[in-house]
């Protein structure tokens, strides 16, 4: 089928990160520093992306600030007329470096917080980062730059959701993104400790809905729910290879962050093929594009153009079959797998595993 035009490119510039968040969305198998693409290769990718029709560039990692050539990459993106969004922990940023990034053309900074409570935040990150983020927030406000505060929520911190919203108001951010953990990568490893109860999830929805109403016109509040409790699956990435492309630190192009968990997919490298060829012809991008791969009940479902059958990686991780209906869907014949996880009686959460940095393999 003829693909639509991609709107966003997610550039994972590095997998190195000073934080060790227990819910990191990076894959368990990460790319080492030695395999990272140089700035020239990234710049060619950005220019190709803009040619292809991409409008927004999301610079992420790992921690993109770990790259000294970040400024050069942002300047090239802006020159190619891309909207640039920096997704960052803030570690490695100071007033001078931020001024240089803004000067290079940065449009939006999305600063991650782990909690409103300093000790709890540092426990999640495995490092003392919270105070640095508070200080940076004040520096960010000196610039004409869109400022998003992002907080990932889960069983251990949901009781402080009102305090997190109050912190966002105090720091006068433009946008607050509250995202429940999505269970891939490191988060899946730590699911027992992170998955909220149904009551916690429902309460979080009420709190967010009322905050969103109260703050309308002042602060945009976006919310991502935990799909294990949803009735229907999320439209993951807006549909497989429909509007988003991701390039990893080594130059592999993927339809999403987690696609590496699907066996048998070969991800073409932007250093071997141009981006348009990959978008239009790479077998990994074609694999679940459109509807022909869909099994029942998706194939004849009225919602198939809304949720695209849900998430292929989640289907793989929970059922072992990447072509199955996403089992979070209440219509899935395998939904009992998800119910088995969500109905488990709450126990004392086990210790979690911290994300470790990529190391060069021998």
């Amino acid at each position: 089928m003829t693909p639509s035009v991609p709107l966003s490119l997610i550039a994972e510039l590095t997998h190195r990160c000073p934080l060790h968040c227990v819910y990191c969305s990076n894959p368990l198998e990460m790319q080492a520093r030695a395999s990272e693409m140089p700035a020239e290769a990234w710049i060619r990718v950005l220019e190709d992306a803009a040619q292809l029709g991409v409008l927004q560039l999301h610079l992420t990692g790992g921690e993109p600030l770990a790259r000294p050539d970040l400024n050069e990459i942002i300047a090239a993106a802006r020159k190619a007329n891309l909207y640039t969004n920096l997704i960052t922990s803030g570690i490695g940023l100071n007033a001078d470096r931020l001024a240089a990034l803004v000067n290079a053309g940065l449009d939006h900074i999305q600063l991650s917080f782990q909690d409103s409570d300093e000790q709890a935040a540092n426990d999640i990150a495995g490092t003392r980062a919270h105070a640095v983020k508070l200080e940076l927030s004040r520096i960010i406000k000196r610039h004409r730059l869109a400022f998003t505060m992002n907080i990932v929520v889960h069983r251990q911190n949901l009781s402080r959701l009102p305090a997190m919203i109050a912190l966002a108001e105090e720091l006068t951010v433009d946008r607050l993104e509250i995202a429940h953990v999505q269970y891939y990568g490191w988060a899946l490893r730590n699911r027992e400790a992170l998955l909220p109860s149904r009551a916690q999830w429902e309460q979080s929805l009420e709190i967010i809905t009322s905050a969103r109403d109260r703050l309308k016109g002042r602060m945009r509040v976006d919310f991502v729910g935990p799909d294990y409790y949803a009735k229907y699956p999320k439209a993951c990435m807006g549909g497989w290879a429909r509007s988003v492309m991701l390039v990893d630190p080594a130059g592999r192009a993927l339809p999403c962050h987690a696609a590496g968990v699907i066996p048998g997919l070969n991800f073409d490298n932007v250093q071997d093929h141009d981006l348009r060829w990959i978008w239009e012809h790479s077998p990994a991008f074609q694999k679940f594009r459109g509807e022909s791969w869909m099994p029942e009940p998706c194939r004849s479902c009225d919602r198939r153009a809304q949720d695209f059958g849900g998430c292929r990686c989640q289907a793989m991780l929970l059922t072992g079959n990447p072509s199955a209906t996403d089992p979070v869907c209440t219509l899935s014949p395998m939904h009992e797998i998800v119910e088995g996880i969500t109905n488990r009686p709450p126990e004392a959460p086990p210790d979690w595993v911290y994300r470790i940095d990529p190391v060069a393999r021998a």
Partner: protein
Amino acid sequence: MSQLSSASQPKLRPGCRLSDSPQQGDVLLIPEGILRLVGPGKKILEYCDGQRTVTEIVHGLQQAFPSVDPSRIESEVNTFLERLHQKGVLELS
């Protein structure tokens, strides 16, 4: 000020900007979002300079499009700006 009124002087908030791309047409790029601009959307936003009031923006559009029913322009401008305001895209002074 958080309510949009005829005396508000709207402009785009930081990190929200117009773009025209050969493949995608006129769009408003915002944090984590893309709004497609159809009809007079782009023109309205070009008048949102933080100086003109909503009333002046309506007048400007009415002068630019003399053949269009002025009351229709007024309601289109108000609806459009209110929608953008709800999305947190505008700064009001």
